């Protein structure tokens, strides 16, 4: 199961909740916008990714899961 996390830069409004919930892969830039580490998300961290996606107030995060 491959999973890649992406942010929709137009919807994103720098709420910052994603970085709180998934600091392993998401850092905030100087202006509060998420920098998502590229690459697949390992199985162990998938739940954090899903939580970050669910909690984004702007629905700006997308987790693309391909089996």
């Amino acid at each position, binding site marked *: 199961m491959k999973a890649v996390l992406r942010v929709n830069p137009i*919807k994103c409004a720098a*709420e*910052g*909740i994603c970085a*709180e*919930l998934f600091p392993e892969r998401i850092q905030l830039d100087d202006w509060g916008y998420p920098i998502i580490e590229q690459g697949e998300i390992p199985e162990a961290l998938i739940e954090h990714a899903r939580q970050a996606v669910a*909690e984004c*107030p*702007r*629905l700006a995060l997308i987790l693309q899961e391909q089996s």
Partner: protein
Amino acid sequence: MSEPSPLWYTTRGAGTVTLILLTGVVVLGIVTSTRWKSEDWPRFLIAALHRNFSLFLVAFGLLHIVTALFDPAVFLGLKALIPFASDYRPLWLSLGVISGDLILAIVLTSLLRDRLGYLAWRIIHWLTYASWPLAMLHSLGTGTDPHAAWFLFVAAGCAAAVMAAIFWRLGLGLEEHPNLRFLSQSVCALSTLGLVVWTAGGPMQSGWARMAGTPSTVLAANSASNDTLAPGVDDQLRGSLIRANDGTVEVSLSDTQNPALQLTLDVTGSGAGQANLTATHNGTQICQVPASIGNAVTAQCGQTQLTITLRSTSQTSNQVIGELITEAA
């Protein structure tokens, strides 16, 4: 005198808890919109609390509505869910109905946000700013506890919390527009003051229940179960004595500490030491019983023994003052 049913207590309690939870939801929502955070309070925590509070709110709100609608003392029925259609205090009840409808809309759109999209969700969410004052006015106008200190404490706390949060939010959001900020914060402060003034002059006054549209049957029942003439009363009375041409004397008294309570003594003069005592609460008669006049006036109203002592304030005027003591018969 009928005992208030458990449903009545439940609805009052649930309603109060709903008001507290709604206050919490609104304050947390305002905090969320300021994007405030701290070490101990990350944003996801505040957001999750806001959401959990709103779910509890729905639960207690439903409890409050169901118990209120089916309370046998004031059987509102489902009809009351239509604004202005209830028999009981239609305006004030309807404010609650509308508030509930708004909250329902907000919760539903939040659950369906994925399908609705952010903008539609955001617009409807703004309605929370309307649902809270409606709930507050509803609880003050409809509630049967506006005199009770505990309720006033809760209501004051809720109002203070929301108004403080709005005040803070305006301060943050309008930092760069000092004039607009001053104006809006003044409106906030003045409306808080207005709420206090209105509460003191409206719901807290005697006669409010009738003015707000409580049906008279309910008023009578409530008065009967009201503990105005319960044992343990020790109030100062004030009133006037009127001597009519036919020799009858009428003494009209009101309880200074409970102005809703009026006592009228009709001394007919035919039987020495005998009089008729009529007690009314908010204009509705509680009891009309014979009273004996000796050193004091005594009468029994229901299970309560009343003792009234009177004296004139002066030789010339017809003003009288006195004391009312009640004890268990």
